[in-house]
């Protein structure tokens, strides 16, 4: 009788090749599934009667629900940036430059990135957990069994809400951060409004605002598409939902940081 060969007995290069091939194949499979999901989303666009009312509902939940925490975080970020910059500016550097530093750092970086990371936690975790629970409790199967398209009923409204609301939240964060930055600077280094406004306008370009909105749009796609995909693929009960939620948040955060770098390199 032929003897079976166990994996431990295989030559080392074969085992090494398998160790490399498995994650690569798994990653390729995920890319393929994600592509299929995006295709399904495109095909669901004409079913506006299904996705439009649900998108409005999701916009309220994403936008209004996240506004307070976004504004609060932006206010603290603006205030701290202002205090630290003010501390370093003590000396021969003109104070009006503080306005430029605060405005540019808030609009170009802190506003979009902090809002993106916040929503990756707040919205991303929620979407992944909601869809994951729906998957493991057969609610998604039930929806399909009723002849309804999960892409138009569940996915598209969530993704569109992110794409619509994240730029709006980033603009709110930008405005709040700048106001908080000015108030903190006024208290700490006694900068006047005229100096602050001069510094802000001196180095401000309209493109900066567009850049902020472009980043917000990209982050909005990340914090909705990734959790929707991961939640939709969840399995193995409560453990699977927990794993999907963690994966969604971690992946979204890492992708936001990578996109931040990529967009800075490409657009600035």
């Amino acid at each position, binding site marked *: 009788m032929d003897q079976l060969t166990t994996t431990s007995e295989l030559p080392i290069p074969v085992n090494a090749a398998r160790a490399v091939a498995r994650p690569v194949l798994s990653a390729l499979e995920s890319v393929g599934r994600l592509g299929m999901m995006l295709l399904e989303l495109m*095909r669901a666009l004409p079913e506006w009667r299904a996705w439009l009312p649900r998108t409005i509902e999701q916009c309220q939940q994403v936008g209004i629900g996240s506004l307070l925490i976004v504004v609060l975080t932006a206010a603290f970020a603006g205030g701290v940036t202002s205090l630290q910059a003010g501390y370093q500016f003590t000396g021969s550097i003109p104070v009006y430059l503080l306005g430029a530093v605060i405005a540019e750092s808030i609009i170009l970086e802190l506003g979009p990135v902090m809002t993106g990371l916040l929503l990756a936690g707040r919205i991303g975790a929620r979407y992944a957990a909601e869809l994951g629970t*729906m998957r493991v*409790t*057969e*609610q998604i*199967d*039930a*929806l*399909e*069994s*009723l*002849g*309804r*398209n999960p892409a138009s009923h569940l996915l598209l409204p969530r993704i569109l809400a992110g794409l619509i609301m994240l730029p709006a939240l980033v603009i709110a964060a930008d405005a709040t951060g700048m106001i908080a930055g000015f108030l903190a600077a006024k208290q700490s280094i006694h900068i006047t409004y005229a100096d602050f406004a001069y510094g802000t306008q001196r180095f401000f370009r309209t493109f900066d605002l567009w850049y902020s909105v472009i980043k917000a749009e990209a982050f909005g796609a990340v914090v909705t598409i990734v959790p929707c995909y991961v939640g939709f693929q969840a399995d193995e009960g409560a453990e699977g939902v927990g794993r999907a939620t963690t994966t969604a948040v971690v992946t979204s955060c890492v992708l936001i940081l990578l996109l931040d770098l990529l967009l800075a390199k490409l657009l600035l």
Partner: protein
Amino acid sequence: MIELKNIHKKFGRHVVLDGVDFTVADGETVALLGPSGTGKSVLLKHIIGLMRPDVGEVIVDGESVGQLGRKALAALRGRIGYAFQTGALFDSMTVYENIRLGITDETCYADRDYCRSRAAECLRLVNLTEDVGKLMPSELSGGMRKRVGIARAIAGRPKYLLYDEPTSGLDPVNADAMDALIERLQKELHATSVVVSHDVRGSFKVADRIALLHNGRIRAVGTAEEFMAAKDSVVREFLERDVQFATEG
């Protein structure tokens, strides 16, 4: 008519269905029996196209389920009502909204008055009052969830009804009530039905024919009388186990 031809399905290396051939005639109720984990629910999901066979063909209402495009599959699903084992109710919606979503005709779905009266009618058919429509699924007991699941499944006036373990997890009194409900629905709706179960006595009560799924294949098919008289060792063992449970209980 529902036809399953040589259905094979495996998950990884685990073979679940290994050449299932199975037919349900129009207006007939067939109970699909078998121990837990033998692939009864998997088979049911093949009928409605939630799963695709590795090999074989599923034909429902003259249409090959695997060959249908998105719209045609959605239209076919509109003619099939699927009552899930746990109800699978949408927990962010009220019972009324759940049942409304079961109305698969878009014109009817858009008519709120029709939806309200149809939801009330479906709730009455499953022995629940109209007031239940205002409740959230989390406020319902296990038995009520199953009944609301059935109400949702019949809301679109389906031609086919698939029940996944309708009596599992219910006490004997409620299980009997559920069997009576299925029997009554069959009489009122005249749908072609498949009832997946491991409850032998309940299946004998509601079904015209019984099929036993064993080791991924249909081991035996026949009427309740034919089943009781069967000499096959697997059929005997399955029937005796149920009788044993009943006497021990």
